[in-house]
């Protein structure tokens, strides 16, 4: 009998999770796609966020702005994942290769040269974001990418508007400086050649 109760409890948790997260799932996926260079990485990121949210279901039920809470978890998970990947040189090499995948750019209508340039710039931005701490990354991305207002961020973090604005400005400056630094402008590892001459 204990197993039956355990199963019911699990299903109840799952139902709660579905009820809370499904309305925000599209937003989570869109955020993950913006932060990753392949569909698979986006799906993995979303799944990691959901597993984390499921393990903190009680907290999720209590928060006032669930979408913001989930996105914040996603940005933290993104930075943590980037750091894990940094420890795997082969994974970094893969990012260089993935940027050339036709599938990842199929939906865009720009010309090929523009696509390569766009992908390289995106890769550079994601690379620079590694250097932000996860709180800075979450805050600035939620404002500048996801479009949360200062008032919403105040409600979410409990910090006054002046503090939020100052943090945003400092983080933009940091990101801008990172992007102007040639030492990190290029990916460390990338495809250096390819042929089909056989």
């Amino acid at each position, binding site marked *: 009998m204990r197993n039956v109760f355990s199963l019911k409890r699990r299903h109840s948790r799952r139902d709660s999770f579905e009820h809370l997260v499904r309305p925000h799932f599209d937003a989570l*996926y869109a955020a993950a796609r*913006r932060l990753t260079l392949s*569909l698979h990485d986006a*799906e993995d990121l979303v*799944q990691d966020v959901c597993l984390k949210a499921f393990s903190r279901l009680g907290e999720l039920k209590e928060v006032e702005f669930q979408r913001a809470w989930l996105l914040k978890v996603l940005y933290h998970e993104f930075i943590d994942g980037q750091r894990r*990947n940094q420890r795997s040189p*082969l994974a970094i090499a893969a990012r260089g*290769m993935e940027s050339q995948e036709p599938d990842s750019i199929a939906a865009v209508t720009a010309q090929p040269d523009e696509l390569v340039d766009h992908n390289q710039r995106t890769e550079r931005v994601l690379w620079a974001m590694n250097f932000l701490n996860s709180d800075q990354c979450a805050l600035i991305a939620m404002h500048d990418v996801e479009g949360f207002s200062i008032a919403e961020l105040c409600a979410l973090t409990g910090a006054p508007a002046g503090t939020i604005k100052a943090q945003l400005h400092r983080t933009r*400056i940091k*990101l801008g400086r990172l992007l102007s630094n040639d030492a990190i402008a290029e990916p460390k590892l990338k495809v250096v050649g390819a042929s089909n001459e056989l």
Partner: protein
Amino acid sequence: MNCDYMADNMTGLITGTLATRQAAECKRHLAECAACVEALRGAEALALLKARDTGDVPLNLFDAVLGALDNAREPRRTGQRFWLGTGFGGAIAASLVAVALTLGWLHFPESNVPEIAELRVPLGQPHMVDLAFETDRSLQGANISILLVGGVELDGYGQRRELIWTSDLKAGVNKLSLPLIAVEEGGGRVVVRLSHPQSEQVFVFRLKASV
């Protein structure tokens, strides 16, 4: 005009929605404030992310995630984080070819290199082959090349027969996942070459279609 005003109006400046007079004030401030120039660069970078095409959510993704919650010890996992191809999710089978690298590698033409493994995979279907390189010390700037000979392709790369890139190998085991397809019954050979300024290692394995 000060940095606070600039910060408040940065998004409008980037999107071009500021009034002419406000935009002109911002530009005057930028001409004399290096910090705001950096901040604008940072904000423009984030605007680039915001503008990315995110596509539609895959139809079954949320259900797959719910399934993973039911069995949290075995989450749906598409990545190994080394993806060379796309579009086949986590359902394909995997094989492992392990190679131990040591210092003082041998150098010899690949035609004379014995095949270290023969893998049988379904004809025409992507099959993940994991290569595990073990090295006793880290190697900076190693060149890795994958050469495909005969009826074998790398999923997502069509007719491309060779990929070359540089990478740093950490001491210990480094995994490289290749989504390979046997496009003919006889399959083909995969030649993997790792080269470093002091040494080179070539190994070969065969991929055949299972009958």
